[in-house]
Structures are given as structure tokens and as C-alpha cells.
């Protein structure tokens, strides 16, 4: 296991319980989608795994150390004063990697997400989808063992988000990081992951989990298969039950 949450609870002062208790395990090279309604603590779970927050109770363990964990947010979260290449090179620069080497690896990562020609562009000159790709390239430039994606496509239009979903799977196939993919979109979760974990409404607990059959990356037309639809239906039911139980 590359990262686990063990009976983890998070309380926020003033607003009470935000998460848990929750158990979650992420295997080496595995893609797990975490689905739940807004405010169920999905993002909190992710920040715990990133080591950016500490649990009130329970235990967080990570085999991936600092520098081996990467994070992509809902917004591209790029520094507007830096070029695409400089943004991608940032994690390396902060780790003290030599300038030219950092630049070379950043350009390689940009090439991987199909943005080789935009390396000198500033974030303001990029479309939403392109900016998100830069953000992905920045997350991958350190060759992470654990990649945390916090609703990374939520702000994009349908066509762009589908294209990016396939891109992420292709990148996963090439680099094989473990991915935790947080989303509130059931179809996206089933499409992206080998395992979907469903959370109840806040404070979030695990409502259930479901293994997703089929090859990763997904073959063309996967979304229209009977299996995909049935699984998405089942996950939706689980989600609905979780919301009722909380209500």
C-alpha cells in the first residue's frame, strides 16, 4: 500500500466533525476514485494523504515521501507571472534541481501533455484545458509515486474533460503512479478508476466501494458499454443511499 487512512477522523474547531471515521487504502500504481456529495470531506481526505493536514484521530500512513507526492487542484493554480515551462519546473526548482536540468525535464513533461509549443506562454494566454494540462505536467515532472487529483476537471466543459480523462489515463499507463481521483461525477469516477469508493454526505464516511472491470486506459466506446452503464448505475445508487442515511 502506498497510502492508507486508518480510522481517520477530522474535526474542525467551530464546525465540528468534517470527516470520518474513514478507512481508505491505495495500492502501488492503482487508480482509486473517491466519489461523494459536496462537503463530504473528499478534499480533506486528499489533503490528509498529501500531508498538508493532520487528522484529529486515527492514522495516516504514506509510503510515498515528500517529493514523491503530487497534487492537482480543481483550478490550474498556476503562477501567472511565470511561463508554462517555469510553472512546470517549479517543483524541481524548489527541490534544488539545477536550472538547465529542471528546464529540460519541464519541457519533456509539457511534451507529454501535448503542450511542447506553449512552453513560453503565460497562464493568461492559455485556455482552461491547456492550463489544466500545464498543471498536470507540473504534477508529473517529479515522477511522483502518488498523484492526488482534486476534482481536476470540474471547471472544464464536457468535451475538454473527456479528452483530459483519456490523457490522464495515458499518462498513468506511461508512468504508473498511484492515483487518488476525487470527483462528484459518477461517470467520470467509473471511467477513470479501477476502484470507486463512495462517501456519504458530511461528515463523510465510506458508504461502500466497487471494483470496476475493464482495461485501463479505456478502449474507445467504453462509455456506451452495458457494463459501464450498469456500474455507473450501481455507484449512483450507493451514493443516493449514502445521502439518505445522512439526511
Amino acid at each position, binding site marked *: 500500500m502506498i497510502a492508507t487512512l486508518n480510522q481517520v477522523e477530522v474535526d474542525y474547531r467551530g464546525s465540528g466533525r468534517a470527516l470520518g471515521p474513514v478507512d481508505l487504502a491505495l495500492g502501488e500504481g492503482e487508480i482509486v476514485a473517491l466519489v461523494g456529495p459536496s462537503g463530504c470531506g473528499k478534499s480533506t481526505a486528499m489533503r490528509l494523504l498529501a500531508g*498538508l493536514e493532520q487528522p484529529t484521530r486515527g492514522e495516516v500512513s504514506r509510503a510515498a515521501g515528500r517529493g514523491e507526492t503530487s497534487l492537482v487542484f480543481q483550478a490550474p493554480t498556476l503562477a501567472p507571472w511565470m511561463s508554462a515551462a517555469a510553472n512546470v519546473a517549479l517543483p524541481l526548482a524548489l527541490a534544488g534541481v539545477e536550472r538547465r536540468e529542471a528546464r529540460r525535464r519541464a519541457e519533456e513533461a509539457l511534451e507529454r501533455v501535448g503542450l511542447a509549443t506553449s512552453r513560453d506562454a503565460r497562464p493568461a*494566454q492559455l485556455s482552461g484545458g491547456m492550463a489544466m494540462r500545464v498543471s498536470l505536467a507540473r504534477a508529473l515532472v517529479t515522477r511522483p509515486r502518488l498523484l492526488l487529483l482534486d476534482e481536476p476537471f470540474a471547471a472544464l466543459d464536457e468535451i475538454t474533460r473527456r479528452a483530459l480523462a483519456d490523457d490522464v489515463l495515458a499518462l498513468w499507463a506511461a508512468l504508473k503512479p498511484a492515483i487518488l481521483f476525487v470527483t462528484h461525477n459518477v461517470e467520470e469516477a467509473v471511467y477513470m478508476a479501477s476502484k470507486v469508493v463512495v462517501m456519504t454526505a458530511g461528515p463523510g464516511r465510506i458508504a461502500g466501494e466497487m471494483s470496476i472491470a475493464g482495461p485501463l486506459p479505456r478502449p474507445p466506446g467504453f462509455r456506451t458499454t452495458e457494463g459501464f452503464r450498469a456500474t455507473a448505475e450501481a455507484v449512483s445508487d450507493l451514493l443516493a443511499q449514502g445521502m439518505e442515511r445522512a439526511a
Partner: protein
Amino acid sequence: MRRLADIAAPVVFVALLLGGWEIACRALEIPVYRLPPPSAIGTALTAELPLLLGSGWATLSTALWALVIASLCASALALVAGLNGLIEKAIQPVVVTLQVTPVIAIAPLVQIWAGLEHPERAVISLAVVVAFFPIFSGALTGLKAVDPDLERLFDLYGASRWQKLWRLRLPAAVPFLLEGHKVAAGLAVVGAVVAEFGAGSGGSQGLAWRIIEAGNRLQTAKAFAALLVLAVMGAGLYALLQLVERRALVWWRGR
């Protein structure tokens, strides 16, 4: 076509205003010392131009010096406050108190501290006080206006305090610093004039003194001319800094 109208509209408006003013002065036979017509102001301006420009330069250089000093002090103090929340809390009330105190009210004190034989120091100090606040609050806001997720990334990648300052907070503060300086430039001129008024007669050769002097002698047209020079100067300085801001923002965000 639209552009032409945009430019023409204010020109036509001002022309109508001046024309109406001129006609009203003549038709109602208003004494020149009470309200001079624009033509008289124009005559006074041409006649007194060298003197007024000299005084204008005195006021402008006061404002510019004040802007430079305020910029250095305010940026440095904002940096210290931005790095340490306790220091910020400690100095914030003092800064706000200084800001809300009318500068004219502290003029006599500053004159005493600067020494009565150095009125120009008092004037610059007072203008610094006025220009200080927008730069300070802009810089401090900017240093704290970092995207929290971007800061989380810096934490995740193990950035040191120094790296976070140098690579994240300072560059993020640039637009706020530019805005603060633009506002401060206009205020520095206001501050310089108010300080000249406050510093009283004799010591100062600035435009404020020209206005007082002309007023005392009932040379109202000359007072208006000095006022005109002052307004043009203030607007020019603001426009210059706006241009600098726009250029710098293009450099900062690439377009």
C-alpha cells in the same frame, strides 16, 4: 468612429464649459478679482508661466521625493508585517491612526521637528505621511493575497520560508504594489500642496504658496493659473503611473 466620439466628447464639454463661463463673466460684468473669465486666466498663465513652472517643479520634486521615501519605508514595513503576523497586529493600529489623522493637523509638529530653518524637510515629511498608506496597505494586501492552493503546493514541495517569500509572495504582490504606487503618486501631490499650505508663508516656493500669495493680492486670475498648473501636473503624474502600471502588468502576466 466610436473612438473619435469618445475623444471629442470631453473636448466639446470642456469647450462649452469655458465658453459659458466667459460669456457669463462678460454678460454679468463680474469683477475680475471675484471670478476671472478664462481669457484672463489664459493671459495670467502666459505672463506668469516661468514663475509658475518653477513653483510647479518645486512642488513636483517634493511630491516625487515623498513618493520615493514613502515607497521604500512602506514596502519595507509591509514586508516585515507580512512576514510576521504579530508585528502586523502591533503596527496596524498605529498606521491606521496616522492615516486617519488630517495631515494639516500634524503640520505644526512636523515643522518643529524638521527645524524651522528647514521648511522643505517638513513639507516632504508631511507628503510622505500622506503617500505612505496606500503603498503600505497595497503591499501588505498583496503579500497576503497568495492563492491558498498555490501556497499548499509550495508546502507540498517542501519550499523553505525564503523560497515562499521570493518565489511566491513577492511576485504575487506586484499588481497590488503597482496599484498602491499609482494611488500614492496622486496623493503625494495633494500631500505636498497641503503641507505647503500648512508650512505657511515664506519658506516654500511651491505652487501652494503661489496660490496663497495671489489670493492675498486679489490676483485671482493668477491663482487660477497656478491651480491649472497644479491640476495638469497631478493628472500627468497619475497618467504616467497608470502607463507604468499597465506596461508592468503586461510584463507580469504576459499580456
